[in-house]
């Protein structure tokens, strides 16, 4: 039996999931040693068994005969009623919107920061090296002594920004701004200065890494402390 090249590449799937015959396993292992394409792809999916194990020995509700979503209690009202409740709430918020727009925007940024900062080490610990990451040092502007390093981590949802800052102002608010290729600036994280003058925070932006033109760390009053080109 002859085995074409495509037949070889394709064995990667069963290699990861298991189930190849001894002969196929040997053949693919040998192919893997010399095939860059398969090496790269394997790097992307080699964590798959660990993820699949999270779903339990049978793979969770979608793989068993149990009714999907059955364990979630309290789903007795019809969906339409809950949609109506939700839309009612939307209407109320929309009316109040102008009043709390700025407050909520700030709170959302802080929340993203808070979540990221705490979860960061947990979420990213062992997997960080496998994520495409660009590191930049932000150059302090004249009159500023700050030292800031930023890692841009490519994620499914955009770019995670891990910021390490030292010799920073010791009071007031600080924020990380992301400027896209069209020059539009948005906040990706905001935090309060610490007495020690150093902090590690994690921000998030929906922009992909290659859509980011530059990054700036600014004070709450908008003064730029440092900037980095990507």
């Amino acid at each position: 039996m002859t085995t074409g090249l495509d037949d070889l590449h394709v064995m990667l799937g069963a290699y990861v999931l298991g189930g190849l015959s001894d002969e196929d396993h040997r053949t693919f292992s040998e192919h893997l040693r010399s095939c860059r394409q398969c090496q790269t792809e394997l790097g992307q999916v080699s964590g798959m068994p660990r993820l699949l194990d999270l779903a339990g020995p049978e793979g969770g509700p979608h793989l068993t005969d149990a009714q999907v979503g059955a364990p979630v209690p309290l789903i007795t009202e019809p969906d339409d009623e809950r949609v109506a409740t939700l839309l009612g709430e939307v209407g109320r918020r929309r009316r109040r919107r102008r009043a709390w727009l700025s407050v909520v925007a700030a709170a959302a940024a802080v929340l993203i920061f808070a979540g990221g900062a705490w979860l960061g080490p947990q979420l990213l610990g062992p997997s960080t090296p496998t994520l495409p990451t660009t590191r930049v040092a932000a150059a302090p502007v004249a009159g500023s002594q700050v030292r800031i390093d930023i890692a841009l981590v490519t994620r499914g949802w955009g770019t995670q920004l891990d910021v390490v800052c030292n010799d920073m102002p010791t009071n007031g608010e600080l924020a990380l701004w992301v400027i896209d290729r069209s020059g539009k600036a948005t906040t990706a994280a905001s935090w309060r200065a610490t007495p020690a003058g150093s902090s590690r925070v994690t921000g998030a932006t929906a922009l992909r890494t290659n859509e980011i033109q530059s990054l700036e760390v600014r004070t709450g009053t908008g003064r730029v402390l440092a900037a980095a080109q990507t």
Partner: protein
Amino acid sequence: MPLDDEAIAEIYREHGPMLRRVVWRATSDANRVEDIVQEVILRVWKQAPEADNLRAYLITTARHLIVDQHRAAGRRPQQAQLGEIAESDSALDRALDQVLVEEALGRLQTNHREIVRCLYYERMTVAETSRRVGVPEGTVKSRAYYAVRNLRVILDEMGVTR
């Protein structure tokens, strides 16, 4: 620009069940599930992300909300031990990832999901799977290949990157 009412209702119908499962599994607090799900959708409505990011955005928002509430409810800051928080957060993350993996499996094409079930969860060989499913071994292999690839794409989209 805020999404309009119809769009919100649509998000709710399409993603509500998935969000409820995520929140339920992560919090085990039946009384809060609906509140959190609605809050997630309201926040996303406010920030109006691009549609192609929506699912990841909903999940990320849910994650933040749950962690935030978890902390606010659990302890006063001065009592919090760093290790304790880290430990419960990582348990929370595992719970979230578990649900997300289950969701991802649910989004696979049926014939790909079947292959993952046979090869991975039931530890069958390619030959056994071929007999069970009634397709040639070559088809089992190529379906396994695309199943793994698609699963990776779906998980990336959900922000599960490990």
